[in-house]
């Protein structure tokens, strides 16, 4: 599913974000990317969905070479990836339904089938009663669950989560990870960048530790 070899990333400012990362993630894997701030967790995720192009090395995501990928192929790839951002990136001027339906709409799905699908995913994350609410009326944990619902609405084979439990209390954070693990049990590959080490003990997965842009340890929790 994902293969990285000697992946390097240098920002235009000159800062080296990734310094030769080697990583393989199989289909159906549940992976934690851990490390201090600036270790390169978010940079790894951003290269995976093509927000930034690697400077050197090899990167294949779902069979596509990210260094030579065409615009059309990148769009197709992004449609097969669910992304959960640390800051949710919810559109606050639109309802929960409109937010969650956005990936389906982008993919040109039949408008009549959006509502049943959105209802189903909101039921999964426990927010079915907030279908027509606006995100600002929801708590931080609920907003993060809306973001998860949006990421899973098009049933992608890969979900990338950047600090999905950041700024959430322990109970809510555990609930978020429960949801992501439930998705993983349905066959979705999940890669999570996180600071919350304590969650790793309660929710098993492959742990990849990054330090100064390089993988320093890989183990199972």
């Amino acid at each position, binding site marked *: 599913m994902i293969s990285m070899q000697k992946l390097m990333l240098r920002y235009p400012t000159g800062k080296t974000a990734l310094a030769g990362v080697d990583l393989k993630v199989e289909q159906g894997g549940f992976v934690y990317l851990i490390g201090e701030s600036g270790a390169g967790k978010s940079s790894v995720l951003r290269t995976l969905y*093509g*927000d*930034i*192009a690697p400077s050197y090395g090899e990167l294949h995501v779902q069979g596509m070479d990210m260094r030579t990928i065409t615009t059309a192929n990148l769009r197709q*790839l*992004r449609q097969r990836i669910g992304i959960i951002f640390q800051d949710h990136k919810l559109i606050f001027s639109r309802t929960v339904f409109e937010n969650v339906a*956005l990936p389906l*709409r*982008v993919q040109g799905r039949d408008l009549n089938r959006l509502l049943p699908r959105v209802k189903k995913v909101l039921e999964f994350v426990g927010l079915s009663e907030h279908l*027509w609410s606006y995100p600002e009326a929801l708590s931080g944990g609920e907003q993060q669950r809306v973001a998860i619902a949006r990421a899973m609405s098009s049933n992608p084979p890969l979900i990338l989560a950047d600090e999905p439990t950041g700024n959430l209390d322990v109970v809510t954070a555990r609930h978020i990870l429960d949801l992501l693990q439930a998705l993983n049990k349905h066959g979705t590959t999940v890669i999570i960048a996180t600071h919350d080490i304590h969650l790793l003990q309660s929710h098993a997965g492959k742990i990849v530790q990054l330090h100064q842009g390089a993988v320093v340890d890989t183990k199972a929790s």
Partner: protein
Amino acid sequence: MTQNKAQKNVKTRLPGGYQLPPFGIQQSLAATIVCVALWMLGMFWLGLQATEQWIGSWQDDIRFHVYLEHEQKDQLKPLMAKLKEVPGVDSIRLVQQEETEAWLSKWLGDSGLTTKEMAEVLPSVIEVLPERNIHEFLFTDIKDEAALLGASVNEEESYFATAQSLFDDMRLFLWIMSALIALAMMVIISNTLRMIILARADEIHLMRLLGAQEWFVRMPFLLEGALIGLLSGTLAWFMDWCVLQLMATWLSELQLDMNSWYLLPVMAGGGVLIGFTGAVIATSDVKQETASIL
């Protein structure tokens, strides 16, 4: 049940594609400015139409008259030949003495003997009929040719030519003004949409990260630009139409039959074109600002 109630209260607006973004204060302001500008432009064109009709009513009667005294009668034929060759002259005609007599008779109250005597001493008159589009030097050319052979012209008739020339200048000025106003309106719509796009930069970036195609991201703004143009153009035409209705009595006294309907497709279609082009300019900038790996 509660959800159905909530759904009724919330209008679903899925972003992207053929869905129009919400129409807010910025769009309303842009539409108002464009509408007023197009309304004024429409009024100018209608004014030109009125002037054209007014000039057209006496344009067919424009004649220049060249007078040649009796003593120089031998120059009549060469003068007629010379005048015929002047660029812009359609035809010439020697006014017959009987015609002059008839004219004098009409103005002097049928005193036949007097008119005959008078007509005999009056100079020969050559009537010069200009082409439809009178160029600015025609009257001077005729005057020069006449002077060479000792004839004179009626100076007051040059005012007709001057009026025609002014009218042509006015038409050219209106075309240039229309082009400049169209350009300015395009910039206004483009800047308005650019502000809206910047306000929605996160939404646009998110759509791109979800794999949206370029047309899907841009289409709402293109539609919005076209809609602002269409609304402004149509409303501007309606305002022009209202002004014509208010002036109907005065216009009919001047025997001017104004037609504002031909302006409707021009203003509505022109508005759409201006708005759409402005939106294309606005969205092309945003592509460069928010594109990542693409």
